């Protein structure tokens, strides 16, 4: 996880395009300037970054299901609940499932667990846009390689 670049996801553990589910891992760093302010003496992952992590997990799922033909952009957060704290050094396991495929939009449900315990969940809505330019498309391809996106899952 590189918080300063909003790189929340470290590794795609399991992407099932047919079942429209994904599991990813995200290792919260021990140190970050974010924790210097949130909070001194009690560093804690901000809830909005937990939501962003679930959105990014959902994003990789959609890139897989829609075969990199559309870029998912977070549009709405519903029923987000932070059920427990996430601390520096925690390894988050994030699972997401696609609950609805609309025309130009999609909806997901996502959960964050640490050590098997549920820490957050949310229902998210995304708009699906064409990649706006080649730079962004190329950038996402590089990030896909970094997080171990299984290209074979979308190449058949």
């Amino acid at each position: 996880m590189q918080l300063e670049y909003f790189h929340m996801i470290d590794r795609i553990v399991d992407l099932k395009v047919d079942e429209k589910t994904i599991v990813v891992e995200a290792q919260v760093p021990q140190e970050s300037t974010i924790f210097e302010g949130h909070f001194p003496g009690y560093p804690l992952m901000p809830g909005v970054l937990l939501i962003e992590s679930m959105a990014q997990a959902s994003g990789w799922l959609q890139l897989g299901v829609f075969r990199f033909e559309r870029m998912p952009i977070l549009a709405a957060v519903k029923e987000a609940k932070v059920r427990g704290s996430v601390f520096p050094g925690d390894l988050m396991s994030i699972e997401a499932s696609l609950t609805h495929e609309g025309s130009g939009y999609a909806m997901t449900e996502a959960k964050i667990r640490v050590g098997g315990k549920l820490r957050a969940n949310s229902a998210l809505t995304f708009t699906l846009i064409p990649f706006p330019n080649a730079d962004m498309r190329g950038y996402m391809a590089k990030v896909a390689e970094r997080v171990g996106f299984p290209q074979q899952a979308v190449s058949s």
Partner: protein
Amino acid sequence: MSSTFDQVATIIAETCDIPRDTITPDSHAIDDLGIDSLDFLDIAFAIDKQFGIKLPLEKWTQEVNDGKATTEQYFVLKNLCARIDELVAAKGASA
């Protein structure tokens, strides 16, 4: 069974917190009811689920942007309901 319009009007009223009695078949979802594109996604989702169809929002938006259709054709509620009925009929025919 309630009409397509009654079902759509109820969806809009509940999704966007708009008084049901202000929603008529001649209401324009955007111009008259003030529904924005994000709220319309929730309406489209509810319609997709309730009628078992997939509203082709991308296609409609493209047609409007290209000047091949007007927003009235798709977003005046009586016209929207006619499109829904067509999609339901097409689904039934292909089933």
